[in-house]
């Protein structure tokens, strides 16, 4: 027989896997999301490359070490890392089938995310009020673009998490919502990894140089 006995490899639950992988339709979407993250990583890679080329091009304006404020970016870092942890706890609750836990941890993660964005906006406003705007020098253009792109990713992540919160509230934990919780957290961890690079390449080496 040249005909497949069972239908595509996309059918039939796969037992013994975490809930988000059990339905093959959802598993493909997770793979797709990983591929998307690869492209997003490259996007940031190009922004980092641009920053590294331009960071000394200050055109007589403010330099990194004059600008960056250690307590400020340290607080941002701690908050974002913590939010990644609480996001992880949401995934864990999801695997344990604990709907309340999922919702609670998503809410905590959203709040931490908001705090991070608030601090970042505040940081940008402070810089701008000292005349360090995007238009001042190539260094500042690349700084604001790199860090701002990350910040807008975080903002998007917050909106996205909120929409998933509503869906979990309405539908509980199904293979489909489980996949969504898993993916949004994947995204969140990814933003955390990018931030670690921003923290070292932009801020730490900025204050040291």
């Amino acid at each position, binding site marked *: 027989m040249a005909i497949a006995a069972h239908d595509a*490899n996309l*059918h039939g639950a796969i037992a013994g896997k975490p809930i988000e992988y059990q339905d093959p339709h959802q598993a493909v979407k997770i793979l797709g999301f990983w591929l998307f993250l690869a*492209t997003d990583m490259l996007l940031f890679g190009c922004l980092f490359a641009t920053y590294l080329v331009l960071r000394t*091009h200050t055109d007589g304006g403010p330099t990194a070490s004059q600008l960056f404020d250690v307590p400020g970016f340290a607080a941002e870092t701690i908050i974002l890392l913590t939010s990644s942890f609480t996001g992880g706890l949401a995934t864990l609750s999801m695997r344990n089938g604990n709907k309340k836990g999922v919702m609670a941890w998503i809410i905590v993660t959203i709040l931490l995310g908001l705090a991070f964005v608030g601090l970042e906006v505040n940081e940008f406003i402070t810089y701008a009020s000292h005349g360090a705007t995007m238009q001042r020098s*190539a260094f500042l253009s690349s700084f604001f*673009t790199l860090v701002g792109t990350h910040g807008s990713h975080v903002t998007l992540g917050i909106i996205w998490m909120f929409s998933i919160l509503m869906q979990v509230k309405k539908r509980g934990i199904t293979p489909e919502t489980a996949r969504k919780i898993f993916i949004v957290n994947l995204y969140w961890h990814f933003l955390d990894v990018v931030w670690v690079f921003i923290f070292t390449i932009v801020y730490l080496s900025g204050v040291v140089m």
Partner: protein
Amino acid sequence: MLSGIGNFASHFFVTGDPMIYGADASILLVSLGILFVLTRYRKWGWLWQDWLTTVDHKKIGIMYLIAALLMFFRGGVDALLMRTQLAVPNNHFLTAEHYDQIFTTHGTIMILFMAMPLIFALFNIVVPLQIGARDVAFPYLNAVSFWLFFFGAMLFNLSFVIGGSPDAGWVSYPPLSELHFDPGPGENYYLLALQISGIGSIATGINFIATILKMRAPGMKLMQMPLFTWSALSASIVIIFAFPALTIALALLMLDRIVGTHFFTILHGGDPMMFVNLFWVWGHPEVYIVVLPSFGAISEVVATFSRKRIFGYTSMVASLLLISVISYFVWAHHFFTMGAGADVNTFFAIASMMVAIPTGVKVFNWLFTMYRGRIRLELPMYWALALIVGFLMGGATGVMLAIAPADYQYHNSYFLIAHFHQTLIGGVVFGLFAGMYYWWPKMFGFKLNHRLGVWAFWLFNIGFYVCFMPQYALGFMGMQRRMYTYPAGMGWTDLNFISTIGAYLMGLGFLFIVAQIVYSIKFGERDLTGDPWDARTLEWSLPSPAPHYNFAVLPQVTARDMWWELKQQGRTGDLRPTSEDLKPIHMPKNSGRPFIMGVSFFVAGFGFVFNWYPIAVIGLLAVVVTLITRSFEYGDEYHVPVEEIQHTEAALGRLS
């Protein structure tokens, strides 16, 4: 008040040129004609339900194909305008300004709005059928990709009549493309149109990687995949690794122009070479993105029409992957003259020459496949043979250009123009045409007329050499690219005139293709078997055109060239379902949202082009709304009932 409006309109619409008024009139007439026909024959519902909202990969592929052919026409008209201008010295058919706009739109359209949709057309039509799948991994996303491409292309073409075309070259290097030197909306059109369609291309890349890795028919191992599928996989990998660089290059230039940042300006520490690097980090891989599927199509065509299995399958796969990898390490050969130093140039020169090795492997494998094969000269095979010759020539001159010290001599001369047209036409267009002729019956259920096709083939091919061979010589004689005119007495006159004759021959060839399509719609030989070429891979086991669910029952794959294998063993009946085999089939539902999303991107892009931020914000908000409503959408799939499948298959005479 009135004069205010008049003043605005004369800046908004491109005015003052009879050619443009002609274009305005014809655009208006064609649009009215389309509206009239759709209304008169009550086709609006059909258009919306069957096409605009479809998520069927075969229909999306057909839409890509139509769009690509239309854009080929537009890019071709641009080419003929330029060649007309250059036919004789001191010509004033076009002004310098127009010439700049036309080479910019020609290059951009040919690469991004002709070659890209043409490869996506073949990916969509062929890959799921070849691997025994019922659709791509993400059908909804596939529709989104198409509409982003479509509205990106619309936005780009709109510049011709509203606001003015971009004119900084298809590479759009700063500082020339910065606001200071290039005010006006043209350059914004370029940046936004490419950005929008680029997002679509990244999504297509992701989609096809997931499709090929996860949706293959049961039993099909990676090393049993047809070579076209392999080429789609390698091109998709290159897409997802290269396009982000373009996204960033365009976004940063956009920021420079709209927000006033200083990434690439001369003032305030900007660095224009950063753009050039980012652009070519995408740009070189891009030419492999378009050539790899062409190679894949040729591999299928050569095997089928030589009635042999492809020679050196493993080395074919390896060379595809090797080309994809090397393509990332050659980008600086586009600007050896930047002054990066001998060490850097040496690295990029050697890497560039190395591409010739896997490419040579492919050419030899095609030749060995034909050797002692029983060759049938059908149209796809004509174009395949033409590709081998044309690409060989383009490739050889490419190696010449890769010699860094020599490149200082012919950089940006007509030698380069001749080289990249020989690779892009001889390597990409010929191969994709071969693929188009080959899979045409599978898409539409009839073959394209042979006689008209042979005419088209010879006109196009002879024109191709008549047009571009003289340009190699012109390059050596010192003629630079992007010159809108040249004085008499340089010794360039005759060669330029010959070149223009060649361009018109190609134009005539294209008209023959159009005639061939129109003629064949009515009189073309119908394909009732589903396998008109006696081919080898699974798509030919299906009726032409395939039913919307593709496979009533999925094949169990045990060999490479599975369909050929079954034919040899007389077991083709095995793939025909019996009524007991049928089960309901899971299919995605149509959706209007991808289309709406495309429109929203278009509105946002248009707003940014003219710095009309309220419009831009409305467009962006609409995009966000489509994203959120999608997130809340559940149950976007349905089951095709067994009775319907039974009915369809029985009508096709396939129920055993």
